[in-house]
């Protein structure tokens, strides 16, 4: 006997209660605090801030805890929260030239003003599981010295003095706001960069990698990669000048790309740019490579049909919150559509069957 399915509401409530219990795990084990996540899983926190487009390490840590460590779910929590926040205004553009760098490297010059600073990097670690960490995570204090004072000039600035790299002309046009206007094509570079900085790290990495393997190859060197904090200033109309309202840590990557010239541009080095919240260098480098690939049109290059050159393809599929929502929606009931497909397939099969019988009879 068929009974109409009722009680969806109770099922949902119970599922949520079970989820909360699973999130907590075995209660014999101490609960994670937000501060622990913020301090000890800071690269996860950085990714959530970057792709969630909200610079708040505590909220990002909370989201990671609530999401049981599922970073895309955590990014989703942050996005849904941020969209409800009132907007008081916009900051002045940050100046990465005055960044207090924790890390600053160039792959194009052995030495340069400001020096090479490795900073806290995995780069030269041997990827051997550290079993000592399983027992005791305490570490001796790292050696330190006084920070360099003074600005750290950009590497691309040195090339520019010789006119070897394309100009990046100053532009005061307010950038479009992806979170307040629908994404429409064609997208200018400011809008593309905005979409890329919050794009899924994995997707951006895959696209960037594809350009390296020849799908729209653009010969990138890491001209410079820098990580550090920059002051954020906001113009206060009542005061008539900008005041510092805080600091953010950013990762900036500028690539210098070989370019032999095109129909419209002389031979020169060209630029790719990545700027991401937090220490997120894999993402920043990927972003710079994809940015450069998407610039084929303005540089008069050929479109070789590579995925990374296709702005519609890249921008419409780079947002992991959109992607995961749509992907996972196929879990929802589709009885009605499936039923109509069933009817159609049965009808087509019936007719195909009848035709075969008739052919056999003939």
């Amino acid at each position: 006997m068929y009974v109409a399915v009722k009680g969806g509401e109770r099922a949902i409530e119970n599922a949520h209660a079970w989820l909360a219990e699973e999130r907590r795990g075995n209660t014999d084990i101490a609960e994670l605090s937000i501060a622990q996540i913020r301090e000890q899983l800071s690269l996860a926190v950085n990714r959530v801030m970057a792709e969630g487009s909200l610079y708040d390490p505590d909220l990002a840590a909370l989201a990671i805890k609530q999401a049981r460590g599922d970073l895309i779910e955590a990014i989703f929590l942050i996005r849904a929260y941020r969209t409800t926040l009132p907007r008081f205004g916009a900051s002045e553009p940050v100046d990465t030239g005055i960044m207090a760098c924790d890390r600053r490297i160039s792959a194009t010059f052995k030495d340069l003003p400001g020096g090479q600073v490795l900073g806290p990097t995995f780069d030269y670690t041997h990827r051997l599981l550290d079993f000592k960490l399983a027992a005791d995570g305490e570490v001796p204090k790292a050696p330190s010295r006084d920070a360099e004072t003074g600005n750290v000039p950009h590497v691309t600035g040195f090339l520019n003095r010789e006119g070897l790299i394309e100009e990046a002309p100053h532009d005061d046009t307010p950038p479009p706001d992806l979170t307040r206007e629908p994404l429409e094509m064609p997208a200018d570079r400011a809008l593309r960069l905005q979409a890329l900085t919050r794009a899924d790290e994995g997707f951006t990495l895959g696209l960037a990698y594809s350009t390296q393997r020849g799908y729209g190859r653009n010969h990138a060197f890491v001209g410079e990669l820098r990580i550090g904090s920059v002051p954020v200033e906001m113009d206060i109309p009542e005061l008539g000048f900008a005041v510092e309202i805080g600091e953010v840590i950013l990762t900036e990557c500028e690539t210098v790309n070989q370019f032999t010239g095109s129909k419209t541009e002389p031979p020169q080095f060209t630029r790719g740019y990545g700027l991401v919240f937090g220490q997120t260098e894999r993402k920043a480098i990927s972003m710079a490579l994809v940015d450069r690939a998407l610039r084929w049109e303005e540089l008069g290059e050929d479109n070789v049909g590579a995925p990374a050159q296709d702005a519609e393809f890249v921008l419409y599929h780079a947002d992991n919150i959109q992607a995961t929502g749509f992907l996972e929606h196929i879990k929802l009931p589709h009885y009605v559509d499936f039923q109509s497909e069933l009817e159609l397939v049965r009808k087509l099969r019936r007719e195909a069957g009848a035709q075969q019988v008739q052919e056999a009879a003939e």
Partner: protein
Amino acid sequence: MTEYNFAYLDEQTKRMIRRAILKGLAIPGYQVPFASREMPMPYGWGTGGVQVSAAVLTPKDTFKVIDQGADDTTNAVSIRTFFQRTAGVATTTATSDATVIQTRHRIPEEPLHEGQILVYQVPIPEPLRFLEPRESETRKMHSLEEYGLMHVKLYEDISRHGHIATSYAYPVKVEGRYVMDPSPIPKFDNPKLGDMAAIQLFGAGREQRIYALPPYTQVVSLDFEDHPFEASKADHPCGMCGATDSYLDELIIDDAGGRMFVCSDTDYCEARQSAGHKGKDAA
């Protein structure tokens, strides 16, 4: 939930959405881009419909949510609860009592009346999307009324299968102008789209589009003179209420392949049962 505005969205956002809705109503079938917000439910789970409902709901409204025609499917429950919490509006399962009905994949069996609003959740608003993946191209095709590609697709279906092989999200033409995706409703529901007394609003959150059909709009399902459009359903009466005119879900009831057919519109089926109608599988 006092920390959020009535119906969750802030008034500025609602105003932006209402503008898009009004534009949509002024140009029936035209897809209006709007700055869709991140909602507290995933994209693809009705965020477009939820934003449209949030923009049109008033405290006096009575709200109904269906998914697959049913009020008690999990996502319908979730969306109804969301507006109960954030807007405190009255809810109902009775189609005729509702002033705003949010739906996924169905149009209620009972004809809607003037003053009602039917809000559709739309996954892919672009009817030409699977023929041309580029948004820049499809927008051009709409503006130039270049719909040949769609007719070729339907014609190829006929030459290959003897029928148009589209059974849901069947494309329609609105007032002789825009080709529109009616959302993934079964083509059985297509005839109800035209000349409807209620306002029909379509919201696609992830794709950032809103479109609309004002009351009594002409909506024609695409077809050919020698292959006229045919609304189809399972050729059975409802096992519970005996209705022969409603769209049916097929249920598997035992291990031996036993099946029964039941109205997908739960309100319609229950109303008929309480009026004394009985199908062959009813207790």
